[in-house]
């Protein structure tokens, strides 16, 4: 049994210790906003916050998330009161297929929480999430407008 705190709610899960957090969140807790893209922490589609830091949940064993505050895209902000990053994403029509966007948004939100006014270089170094639709120009622009509070 593993006890996880996801978006402020405790869940007791009957899963093996080594199950990656991604699959516990998606298949057992039932929150599917966090996506599976590669399973080797290469693409970032599975990005969630662990005590506020962006982590790639597809390689993080659930046992390492015990006692920590896990936040998924569903818990980033109330649905009718979106996070500034989500507001910027909507204003700039960032998504195309949208599949990587939960991870992109979680990575961007963690970046801005840590560094409210990132430079282009900060964004390039931090935002290593893959987008095959090529939303990169708009993601970068939306991060800047969220940082400037102009979204």
């Amino acid at each position: 049994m593993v006890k996880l705190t996801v978006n402020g709610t405790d869940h007791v899960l009957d899963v093996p210790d080594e199950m990656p957090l991604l699959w516990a969140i998606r298949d057992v807790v039932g929150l599917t906003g966090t996506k599976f893209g590669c399973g080797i922490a290469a693409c970032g589609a599975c990005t969630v916050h662990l005590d506020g830091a962006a982590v790639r949940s597809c390689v993080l064993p659930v046992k390492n998330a015990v006692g920590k505050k896990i936040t998924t895209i569903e818990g980033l902000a109330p649905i009718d009161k979106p996070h500034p990053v989500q507001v910027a994403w909507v204003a700039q029509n960032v998504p195309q297929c949208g599949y990587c966007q939960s991870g992109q948004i979680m990575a961007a939100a963690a970046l801005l929480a840590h560094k409210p006014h990132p430079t282009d270089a900060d964004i390039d170094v931090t935002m290593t999430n893959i987008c095959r639709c090529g939303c990169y120009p708009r993601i970068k622009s939306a991060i800047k407008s969220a940082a400037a509070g102009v979204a």
Partner: protein
Amino acid sequence: MTVALDRKDFLRIVAIGGVGLSLGLEFAPGSAEAAAPGMPAAPAFVPVAWVEMGTDGLTTIVVNQTELGQGITTALPMCVAEELDIPMSSVRFRISPAEPKYYNAVWHGIQTGGSRSTPSMSPVMRKAGATARLMLVTAAATQWNVDPAACTTSNAMVLGPSGQKAKYVDLLTAAAAVPVPATVTLKTPEKFKILGTRQGRLDVKPKTNGTAVYGLDVKVPGMKYASIEKPLQIGGKVASFDASAALKYPGVRQVIQVPAGIAVIADNTWAAFQGRKLLKVTWAPGPNAGVSTDSIYSEARTLSKTPGVVLKTTGDVATPLTGKVVTASYETQYLAHAPMEPMNTTADVRADGVTLWTPTQAQTDSQKVAAKIAGVPLEAVKVVTTFCGGGFGRRGETDFVEDAVYTSKAAGIPIKLVWTREDDIRNDPYRGGTVSSMIAAMTPEGKVTTLKHTMVCSSIVARAIPFLFKNGIDPLAGNGMTNTPYLIPNQLVDWHRLNVAIPVGFWRAPYANSNTFATESFIDELAHAAGKDPVAFRLAMLEAGSPPRVVLERVAKLAKWGAPLPAGHAHGVAMGQWDDAWIAMVAEISLPNNKLKIHKLTASVDVGQPLNIDGLEQQVPSAMIYALSAAIGGKITFADGGAVQKNFNDFTVLHMADSPEFVIDIVRSTEKSTGAGEVGTPCVAPALANAIFALKGQRIRALPLNDGLLT
């Protein structure tokens, strides 16, 4: 209309409250969930299959094309809203079921691809909007006892000749009794208020808060998760297997042999993946045993030196060439599609029918394969199309659907069948590698008189659409060569089919994405051989006022072609085409430490009458970024008939840090609207290669470019 599918229990229905509501998945108007807060009431007026107008003032547009990211679920509703004169804020969409009344005429079914959605469906959707509008006008005119022709419409209202006003929402019942008109008149482009403007995506909110439902997110009662262990050698078969260790892993329920391999069925995806690792499988070799990158290209290079089957001939191609003769050969690499969402399908196979929840570009084909496997009629296969995490042609295949159907049938329960990324990279219908041998003759003044291509590649059509493969000819193989815009009197394109059992498939701008590297690199070589500027050389061969000439003129001006660049920078130019759409692109690059740095890509594009300008400004760079991954470093190589690459660590794709600045110029045409998802892809690799030549005099004739820079 009500779809007889019990979605209430089977699906997460996603409703984002407020105006501009968009739904994650189709729902059934009139069913129980319609009464829930935020859900639309049963439509009061359904003039045609595509338009459902509700008493809540909202109009639901039914879209029969899959949303892959290309924005079709915004562009097609825009077409309806334009002709119907309703604000986009009152519009939402749902994805149609796979039923004949929603079939797309060009596909004889439901399918999405080839940038065909816009040219095929935008006229249909505009007509649908105009039909609904005329019925509402007729209803109001009848009430007012005036001539319908004397009425106008604006902002969801009919306006009468004496100042009468009626809101659409108050006319729905009366309009529903009006006979559907046989003909309607569409707006002329100068009257457009919505088409050709910037509109926000109708799917943007669910795609930013985690509520959009993709195939991988579907959950149905009684469902188990499954994943199939497949051979590393493409086409390999199971000789024998031992599942005893796999069955002991917590959560693993069943292990079943299916045609693609060994399916592990479990309580969750992770357990299914772990079960696969514990299988002991002995594989029997298949038709690709011993096939390697070297063996493929060795055969292709040999074939490229001999004449193939003729795809196009113009003028005199028999007389021996005179004047300045230039030859070169080009090679492109194999590539995987690698959309972000790995392949998956949820299938519920029962004795009397099948339900598929699937991220597919090929609904009708999926019905066909499921019907065959399950032994039920086509009509008994229901398809619920989810949002798709990318497509690029990959989801036009049915292999992942077949995996789910076979597994559900064998297990006797609903199955969510999930591929790993490794399965995806290793079992792709790849963008096929090509070898092209080119020869041209020019007059002493540098006028091209003859251009001949001999191209070698595997056939997509022979595998995927065999009935179109006739007399040994793949009718699409010459795309990007046979449709050259250049006025060259003598032209020959011939082709050899490479007989390798590694499957090749439709990959963003199929064939054009590889052929254009050869054609536009070679034109550049000819320009330099003639001592001419590459833009001027091309312009001299393009008909004045033609779309390709216009985009080239515009991009040259916009990118300041010929003006001084920063030290160490160079420009390269290339043209591209997809269907009726044209693009010309200028790439600005530098090579610090011999490493390719792309600063800016400037493109002028003509897709006919633009639908959503904002959508075009997404799709053109999208196609170019997809092409950058392919041009710079992406490649699939083979050893003993299997892909060497496995995942995003060794199949490299572009990251944000390497994404350049884009300048996109859209021609405000009023010609027929055409698709925009693919036209940006073909010109990227040749523009970069031409820029590299301009900068350092090295002509790279094989992709990816990084491999050429290292040699």
